[in-house]
């Protein structure tokens, strides 16, 4: 029997404001928004803003293939040439109404689990969305508290509601430390069900 590898998890909100630094040490920008693909949950990249308190959004963005590494204190890039136009990463008309924060999470059998307050990412060779932190609804029995809901390997959602399999409600975790195991168990359950 193999021991499961512990998941390195972080909240998407922890990345906001993190400096983008080149390998030569130049501060390029700060992370503004995290952009992910709803089908597959992979991080597509980041929108950027200039550093500073009253800074403006930038017209360029950082696509994931241009990221050298995501560290605790900075996002590293090889140089500024990896930045692309923000509209290439997230076309304006798509991005305008695509923020999942405050969206409702519904199970595929119609239970309202709560509203998204943050998105949980798994940091490995790539950065993937593995769950939502939600303000729980009455349906979870912990109304108003923040809990973590695991997501399947591939999520296919659109519109203002985020749909998760009904089994996700059984793997809700109250702390991020235990959430990695919950994601693994939930995905194993889904695979068993599919085979």
């Amino acid at each position: 029997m193999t021991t499961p590898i512990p998941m390195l998890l972080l909240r998407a909100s922890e990345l906001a404001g993190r400096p983008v630094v080149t390998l030569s040490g130049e501060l390029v920008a700060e992370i503004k928004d995290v952009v992910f693909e709803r089908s597959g949950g992979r991080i597509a990249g980041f929108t950027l803003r200039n550093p500073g308190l009253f800074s403006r959004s930038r017209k360029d963005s950082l696509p994931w293939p241009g990221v050298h590494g995501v560290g605790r204190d900075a996002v590293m890039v090889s140089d500024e040439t990896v930045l692309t136009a923000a509209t290439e990463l997230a076309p304006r008309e798509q991005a305008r109404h695509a923020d999942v924060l405050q969206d409702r999470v519904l199970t595929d059998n119609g239970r309202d689990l709560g509203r998204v307050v943050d998105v949980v990412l798994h940091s490995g060779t790539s950065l993937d969305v593995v769950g939502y932190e939600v303000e729980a609804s009455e349906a979870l029995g912990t109304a108003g508290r923040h809990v973590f809901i695991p997501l399947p390997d591939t999520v296919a959602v659109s519109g203002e509601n985020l749909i998760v399999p009904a089994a996700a409600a059984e793997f809700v975790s109250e702390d991020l430390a235990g959430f990695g195991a919950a994601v693994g168990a939930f995905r194993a359950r889904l695979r068993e069900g599919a085979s």
Partner: protein
Amino acid sequence: MVWWGWVILALVIIAVLVVLAVVIQRKRRRGGVIGLSKPGRGDSR
């Protein structure tokens, strides 16, 4: 209104504007999480 009345009014208005600016800026700086239904052109995967 006596002169110090105008001073107090001006200070209150300035305080309200500063609080508003800080609230708006904190909201802007929080960032979002954008879920794309289709990958952007910049994503080569």
